[in-house]
């Protein structure tokens, strides 16, 4: 039986052979190892290298060794323990202070001029942001009247965008009225309507109550009257006069809901 307990017939790989040789197993102690070393040049060289270990060890042990003396070894443990006591006492003396709370920490930090200025700026910025975005989506009565374009399209940009009646008005240019841009929460601005020509207002109301809008004006429209009541008015100005603010708001809600 071999030294390592390996069965006699099992072959030894180079990796195993090197591992055993470096671990200190002698070739003579392991039959299979011996056979492998005898047939493998690489492992033979490793075995030759390892034969020098005992000589290297003997040579190093012959070198003069410094000996501090028995007294030194007797006293070293006491010195180590004394160092340990000093170390522990030092650690106890510099116990970390309890961590300040977040508010304490922030209070101290904010007493410094630069951080305080930054913090103030941040608060003002947040306030401005909050104020400018508080009206989003636009709360009330935003009837944008802009410069005209040929064809005067009402903005029907996207369904996601807040819808408003965007009548691009230019004198002498017909203003086609498209329904559906009155959003919920939008109020007809009487002043703006007043700026429109009668013809244009009529077109607006025609657009609201006319045939293109007929399908869209449903139940909500009927709450304050029939669609004929609007479309049959003699003029747009009269129609507006007859519609009080509440009715206009209801009209707008109806349009918004249906669209």
């Amino acid at each position, binding site marked *: 039986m071999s030294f390592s307990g390996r069965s006699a017939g099992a072959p030894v790989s180079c990796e195993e052979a090197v591992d055993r040789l470096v671990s200190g197993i002698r070739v003579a102690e392991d039959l299979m190892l011996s056979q492998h070393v005898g047939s493998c040049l690489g492992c033979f060289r490793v075995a030759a290298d390892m034969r020098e270990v005992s*000589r290297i060890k003997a040579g*190093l042990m012959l070198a003069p060794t*410094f000996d501090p003396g028995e007294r030194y070894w007797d006293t070293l443990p006491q010195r180590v323990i004394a160092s340990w006591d000093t170390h522990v006492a030092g650690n106890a003396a510099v116990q970390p202070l309890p961590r300040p709370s977040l508010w304490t920490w922030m209070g101290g930090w904010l007493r410094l001029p630069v951080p305080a200025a930054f913090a103030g700026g941040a608060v003002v910025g947040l306030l401005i942001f909050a104020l400018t975005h508080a009206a989003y989506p636009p709360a009330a009565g935003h009837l944008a009247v802009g410069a005209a374009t040929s064809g005067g399209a009402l903005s029907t940009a996207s369904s996601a965008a807040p819808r408003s009646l965007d009548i691009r008005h230019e004198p002498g240019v017909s203003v086609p009225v498209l329904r559906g841009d009155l959003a919920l929460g939008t109020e007809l601005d009487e002043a703006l309507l007043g700026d429109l020509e009668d013809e244009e207002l009529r077109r607006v109301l025609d657009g609201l109550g006319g045939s293109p809008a007929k399908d869209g004006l449903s139940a909500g429209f009927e709450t304050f009257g029939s669609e004929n009541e609007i479309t049959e008015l003699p003029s747009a100005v009269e129609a507006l006069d007859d519609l009080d603010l509440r009715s206009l708001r209801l009209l707008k809600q109806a349009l918004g809901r249906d669209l």
Partner: protein
Amino acid sequence: MPHVEAPSDDDLVLQAREGSRPAFEALVRRHQKPLYYLCFRYVRDHDTATDLVQRAFIRVMDKVGELREVHIFRSWLYRIGVNLALNHLRDNARFVDEDQIGAAEPSVPPEAIARIESSEDSETLRRAVDGLPTKQRMTLELRIYDELSFKDIAVALDTTEGAAKVNFHYAVRRLKSLLGVANLGKVGSP
């Protein structure tokens, strides 16, 4: 009188972990010599080696609670010693006098040097070992002086057992080529 067995390292470590001062002192007494010589081989100065030993044991006591496997205490202690010694060498690299490496230590009292059999060849061998790459040198010294297994060397040097074996083989091969087989044979021969 019944023979009382000395407590094992494992027992002493467990007791030291609980704050037992006698256990700690016993551990120091048991391991002070090899640790001292381990450090001394690097720093070549008695006072520095003593300081490193003290620092190593203090670090051991500081961290012994974190040592999960108490049976590797010895390798762990050597690892701390090696790291401290290497850190010392690194921090004081500019002050190292090249001529002093491998030579007699000025801080060592002459009378303290043991009169062990000495020869020029063994001194040459010592210098050759000092010239090895750090990992190879550490592996060789831990294997030869402290007779650690490659498994323990791997723990002490924070490497793998296979890498420790490779380093050892390379160290031996390099020494063999540096000094020549014949010279080594002369050193080792009785």
